[in-house]
């Protein structure tokens, strides 16, 4: 909290980029009436949802994932391994980015606006479903990025790889119907970023064709969570600390 101005500026930066995405949606819909079956306000809802998930993820995990390689490089991991608490829990939730919660709130505002424009009246069940799917989405992002971050146990410097994953957030806010073929299959089943925001948005907008998407999202999420835990344990064994 020693850089109050900077704290506010970071919120502004994130808001600008969010605004940029919304601007892009409005540009797209100046060219067409629909992207696949997605209407303008449905896509605004999608961008809002995607930003909501991303901001919550950023608030809790992002800084910690990018800092992991520093902990390994400098040997500060020693300290966390000695504490009588699960090490992964510690390194994953060490720092919380409060500004991101503010931006998540802005995302909620945009989602409410879009829902009003779409005349949606979500039931309690829908909202609970939406919230739990958002949580699953966050866990998927976290599992994937944590795997990339643990690569630093092998290569020491993995920040570049972790930031590379950031590109995948760019796809998460696009409607699933814009994609076909191998690309869609890879980003639905292998790296399910196309499901992460699309499925919860569809739950809210009543456009979910079948309940299969729920199942796929939960299943793929569980698989990635397990893989990332396995990978973490393998990686931890390679940890040799730094000269001290």
């Amino acid at each position, binding site marked *: 909290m020693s*850089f109050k101005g*900077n704290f506010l*500026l*970071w919120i*502004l*930066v994130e808001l*600008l*980029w969010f605004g*940029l995405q919304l*601007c*892009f949606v409005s*540009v*797209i819909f*100046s*060219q*067409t*009436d*629909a*992207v*696949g079956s997605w209407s303008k306000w449905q896509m605004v809802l999608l961008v809002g949802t995607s930003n909501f998930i991303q901001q919550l993820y950023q608030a809790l995990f992002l800084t910690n994932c990018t800092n992991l390689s520093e902990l390994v490089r400098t040997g500060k991991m020693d300290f966390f391994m000695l504490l009588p608490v699960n090490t992964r829990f510690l390194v994953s939730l060490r720092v919380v980015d409060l500004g991101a919660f503010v931006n998540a709130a802005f995302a909620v505002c945009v989602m409410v606006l879009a829902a009003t424009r779409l005349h949606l009246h979500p039931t309690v069940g829908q909202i609970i479903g939406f919230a739990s799917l958002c949580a699953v989405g966050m866990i998927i992002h976290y599992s994937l990025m944590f795997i990339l971050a643990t690569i630093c146990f092998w290569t020491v410097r993995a920040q*570049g*790889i972790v930031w*590379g*994953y950031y*590109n*995948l957030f*760019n*796809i998460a806010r*696009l409607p699933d*119907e*814009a*994609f*076909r073929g191998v*690309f869609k299959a890879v980003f639905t089943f292998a790296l399910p970023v196309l499901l992460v925001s699309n499925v919860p948005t569809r739950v809210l907008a009543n456009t979910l064709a079948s309940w299969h998407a729920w199942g796929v999202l939960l299943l793929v999420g569980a698989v990635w969570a397990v893989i990332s835990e396995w990978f973490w344990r393998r990686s931890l064994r390679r940890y040799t600390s730094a000269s001290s």
Partner: protein
Amino acid sequence: MSQYFYVVVTGLQNNLQYRFNYLTRTLFSFIPLFAMLSLWRTIYASRGHHGGENGFTEAQMIFYYLLVAVVDVLTAVNEDDWQIAADIREGNISQFLLKPVDYLWYRLSLFLAGRLAFIAVAAIPLLVFISCYRAYFLAPPDLGVFSLVLVSLLLTALLQFFISYAMAMLAFWLLEISTLIFILYAFEYLASGHLFPLDVLPPGLKQVLFLTPFPYQLYFPIQIYMGKIAGVDLWRGLAVQLGWVLLAYQFARFMWRRGIRKYSAFGG
């Protein structure tokens, strides 16, 4: 002059150490690019190929994004602004106040080295990616236009660099400038035509954007290449671009002079 040549050579060697980093960065950047191409294809499919009121056919739209990727590899400022800011903050610039090396030319040499290294690594994956879309990738109208594209690309690179350099000079006054860099970057991303061709914007807004240097940081050379601008407009555009480069250069110098007065050489 020769000292800057050595800066380029050593800079090249340093940058090539990060070739794996550059490669992953290039490969990862294809994912959003591909996604963008798919999105526009879907848009064009759903509006049934009628009415190109923005003047872009589906093929031209795809071509546009491919050119954005190419121009980006050739001219984008990579981490120069962060490095300059770090040099100032950590007091590394003290040595340049003593040596017969001008910091701006030194950084420009490093920028050149960084671009050459990046191009060396990114060229092959980029060519492979483009060859998947070769049906959309057209040759420039003629050799004369192509040489003007090259001139414009050079000006684009210089403009990008001088603006980033001037921005990084803020580190003389502020401890933490990454937020400001990101804010500038957000404007550049939109107004330089990175996110979409400026032609899809309302004409009035597009004209306003052309009063700023942003379109000359990316959109303008692409416009020349695609033959969207020709004749007197082209020459006028080039003159304006050159004007922005000179202005940005002067501004960068000005910021440096003011900054040096403030400079107190932390950790000298």
